């Protein structure tokens, strides 16, 4: 096997060379998603809007949550969560779905996880105006703290990429990874403060949940766009450390499987 450093240098080189292809594919993916549907790009907003309405109704009228602007909180959480779970689910399947491009057009398989992450976070960016519009409508004006998203989104993207890279390669080898990830991400949804603020939980449980980097991302996102405060640096550092760990694991997986991906799909 090629030495780790040498392998990574080559891998990043070939990915950098194809940066335009990745971009073009991500843009195409976004276009595909909303092409041909009656409401066009508006579909981007429909799914989180509907979910937001459901959660708001359920939690405020049935569970009697009394957090001010609960609907805005849920909405901001759902948008971020959609990006995260979209990355996980599409990530597990992305290499298999692009067999033709890998085995016929000789694209390196690793560009597809990057494309997936890029697509979902571009989608997130596109829905942000809606979030701000909606919160204005509910009488909650966006603060300058939202600008923290400028570095929060890249961090979230790097973190998601660090996971998705490994998952996508494993997903190409073991087809049930896709189902596993689907189920897991569904289960994770409930451990993540999307439908509730983390502060309503007991202190101990909060600490446990905050170990999950996905919780950290959602929490930081909420702090930036909803609570309007400086992102907790402790959480930020934790996420960055997680990113480094996961990217190393993922790169090891990629190196181990890289040469056989094209044969197995």
């Amino acid at each position, binding site marked *: 096997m090629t030495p780790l450093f040498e392998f990574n240098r080559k891998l990043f080189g070939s990915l950098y060379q194809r940066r335009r292809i990745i971009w073009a594919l991500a843009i195409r993916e976004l276009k595909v998603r909303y092409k041909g549907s009656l409401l066009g790009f508006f579909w981007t907003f429909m799914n989180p809007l509907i979910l937001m309405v459901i959660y708001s109704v359920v939690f405020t009228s049935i569970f009697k949550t009394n957090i001010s602007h609960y609907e805005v909180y849920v909405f901001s959480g759902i948008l971020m969560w959609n990006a995260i779970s979209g990355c996980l689910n599409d990530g597990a399947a992305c290499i298999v779905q692009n067999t033709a491009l*890998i085995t016929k057009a000789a694209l390196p398989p690793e560009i597809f996880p990057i494309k997936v992450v890029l697509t979902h976070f571009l989608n997130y960016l596109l829905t942000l105006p809606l979030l701000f519009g909606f919160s204005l409508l509910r009488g909650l004006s966006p603060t300058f703290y939202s600008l923290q998203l400028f570095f929060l989104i890249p961090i979230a993207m790097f973190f998601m990429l660090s996971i998705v890279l490994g998952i996508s390669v494993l997903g190409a080898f073991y087809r049930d990874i896709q189902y596993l990830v689907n189920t897991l991400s569904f289960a994770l949804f409930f451990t993540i403060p999307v439908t509730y603020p983390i502060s309503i939980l007991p202190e101990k449980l909060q600490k446990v949940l905050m170990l999950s980097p996905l919780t950290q991302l959602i929490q930081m996102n909420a702090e930036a766009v909803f609570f309007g405060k400086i992102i907790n640096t402790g959480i930020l550092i934790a996420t960055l450390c997680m990113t480094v760990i996961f990217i190393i694991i993922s790169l090891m997986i990629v190196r181990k499987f890289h040469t056989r991906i094209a044969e197995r799909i």
Partner: protein
Amino acid sequence: MINLERINKSFDLRYQRDDFTLKEAFVRFLRYSLHWLKFVDLREPPQYENFDQKLEQESSSPIINVLKNISLTIDRGETVAIIGRNGCGKSTLLKLIAGIYFQDSGKMEIDGRISPLIELGAGFHPEFSGRENVFVNGQILGLSKAYLKKRYEEIVEFAGIEQFMDSPVRVYSSGMYMRLAFSVAVNVDPDILLIDEILGVGDSDFQHKCQKKLDEFKSEKKTIILVTHDLDKVRSWATRVIYLKSGEIVFDGPPAEATKIYQKDVDSERQKDDLSDTQIFFSSYPELESSVKWGKVSQVEGQTSEEKMCKILELNPEYPGLHMVFDHRIISIGENLIFRLLNKEETITLFEKNVTLRVSSYESLSNSENEFYKLDCPDLSNLAQEEYHLLVISQTTHHQGIIILKFNLIIHQDENQRGLINLPFKIGVQNDSPV
């Protein structure tokens, strides 16, 4: 320049299935690690055996060697055609050079930018218009957006489908689809062009255009490696041909010679296929094919696949007739054999003769550990040009008429020769040999 040194490539069929899952991998891992840790002896649980058996049924060995020890050097500006039958490893070789697959062992050096045109339109998305697909597919092929913009009109003109550029490609006919894909693809500017069976695109007019474009590549001294079954194209266009046969290079040289060898192989294989009920089969008969006259063939040797009943069939110039040598040890045949010639439909016995076996006195067989008998059959040289069936029937005291050899015989008649016996076509053995 491309330099391959002792490249080997194999595929493990166990993992080639679509449904190989984490669960299976996990069970396997657990089973072996537990065994290794000596906790439990779980290495061969019965249900797992079934899984392995199932795989074994699918193929005798799960590992197939697709390329065996391939060494070759292709210089800049060469137009190399790779020919061979389906499954001989042509495409795998191309994909190795393209960097899609990776060799198991061996060294590969490639100098220059590669454009693999393995399948056209791989990057096309059915929902998008031709225009959008030109840009995305062009970028996948490594062209810049600015370059594509500049060349757009030209690409569309080359494809000849101006009026469809704004319709989604899913409504395109397959011809239009391929034409557009090809038009984008020819804009690449690589040092090495890999082409896999994509030249049969469109009508003859379009094919002519394609050919012109490819000639341009050739005159620009680009290295072209081409996988094709089109022998005419190979002859007229390639400067060098590599003939692959089950993963090995059997010929590497000028096109005329290569296609001749290939054609011959294909024909003989086809003959073999046509006579599908063959049980004994001989690998090749070079002497027979080159012989013109009856009796010219001195020795024909073949390997029998199962029962080595008939070791050698030969035609001897000294006395006309067909001579067969039997291995006595392997099959006990009676001393009296009936040699029977039937017509094509096997309805009429043309002639029948009793022949006796005698021990062979050939030097070539003397050091063999087997004992051979030789059967001299009657002169067949006067037969009319036809197809016949030939039976050799063994008669022993215990058995009555066991057919030990059966094959058909094609006699060609020329004015200057008595006949050419065109053997091996069908040698069927009915395997109820006496014990």
